[in-house]
């Protein structure tokens, strides 16, 4: 019985450790290239963003919808602009598609994302997302310039 208890404890601990460490150290494997790939840091320290990004989004969403604050730093649209990947043809890949930035991590942590039932999963550039999903390299350069200017 004692052995059973110990092995159960070891099992629980190992599962727990796996869950905690499932994200740490292992880099994202996403297809395509994004602007974020070439950046050294996100808008907040990476560790903080990994664990608390939803808190920033939650705070910003109320400020934006209710008070009309439109700053870019914690803006959801800005996250998409920077983290969305483009395929070899320069076409934006929806960020919630399989193997993409948001989806990849949320699958790993078994968390459902509901943002994209309402929000666009592709960038807004130049004005309306979804309508300009085909982008060439010039467009991407302009997009990068546009995002940098926004900050």
């Amino acid at each position: 019985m004692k052995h059973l208890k110990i092995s159960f404890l070891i099992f629980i601990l190992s599962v727990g450790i796996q869950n905690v460490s499932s994200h740490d150290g292992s880099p994202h494997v996403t297809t395509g290239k994004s602007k974020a790939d070439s950046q050294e840091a996100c808008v907040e320290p990476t560790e903080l963003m990994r664990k608390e990004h939803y808190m920033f989004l939650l705070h910003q969403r109320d400020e934006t919808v209710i008070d009309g604050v439109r700053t870019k730093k914690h803006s959801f649209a800005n996250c998409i602009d920077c983290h969305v990947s483009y395929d070899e043809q320069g076409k934006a890949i929806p960020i919630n598609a399989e193997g993409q930035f948001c989806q990849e991590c949320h699958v790993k942590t078994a968390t459902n994302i509901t943002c994209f039932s309402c929000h666009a999963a592709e960038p807004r550039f130049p004005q309306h997302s979804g309508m300009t999903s085909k982008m060439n390299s010039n467009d991407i350069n302009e997009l990068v310039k546009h995002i940098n200017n926004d900050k």
Partner: protein
Amino acid sequence: MINRRNFLVKSASALAITFVVPSLLSGKAHAKKPLAQKVTDKQSWGIHVDAGKCVEGCTACVDACNEENGLTGFGRPETDSQWIRKVTVKNKTTDKITTMPMMCQHCENPPCCDVCPTGASFKRVDGIVMVNQHTCIGCRYCMMACPFKARSFVHETLTQQNTNAPRGKGCVESCNLCVNRIDHGSETTACEDACNKAGHSAITFGDLKNPSSKVRLAIDSNSPRRLRNDLNLQQKVFYSNI
């Protein structure tokens, strides 16, 4: 040669040009809100519709609204989202036919907000009545409460939404006076732009609290009325020539 008098006159002129003139000019222009600043009640947005200029059969405002907010239909007019629609009415006594756009009337006393169980229907401090879709539970009480049938419910799963107009299944939505544009400093709505472009200029948008704004000038010169004034909702959409 510069003498004392010349020097003083020129310095004063230079100072005036540098500081006084720009401040006078910016006083007249629409002061753009910094993106980090919260909206205030110093402005109150509204619309004046001159039904006399609205043309029957023209749907420029409706098309522009659909384009701006990514409203795509599913071929089901009874339930497809509609933030602005054209209404044609006939006076039975005089046979006069009037056509005009109808959208959320942005009431000062909005019945939709009174009945909302979650507070998702709310009035921003600058007077825009809108739906916080993060907290809307889709009960549709507001749709029943609105005397103008201004609100729509999203029945279908949506894809390819516009970044500037997030919207999804299970929420109620309506005209928000192009809130994203206004917050970014625009002085026009999509419907107003389209109406002007079509050459009708029936829709005028602006700040009701600014006596020299184009909407105030239009209201002051047309003596318009509110629809269903008996309900005392104090709407911010005014109609002339109906």
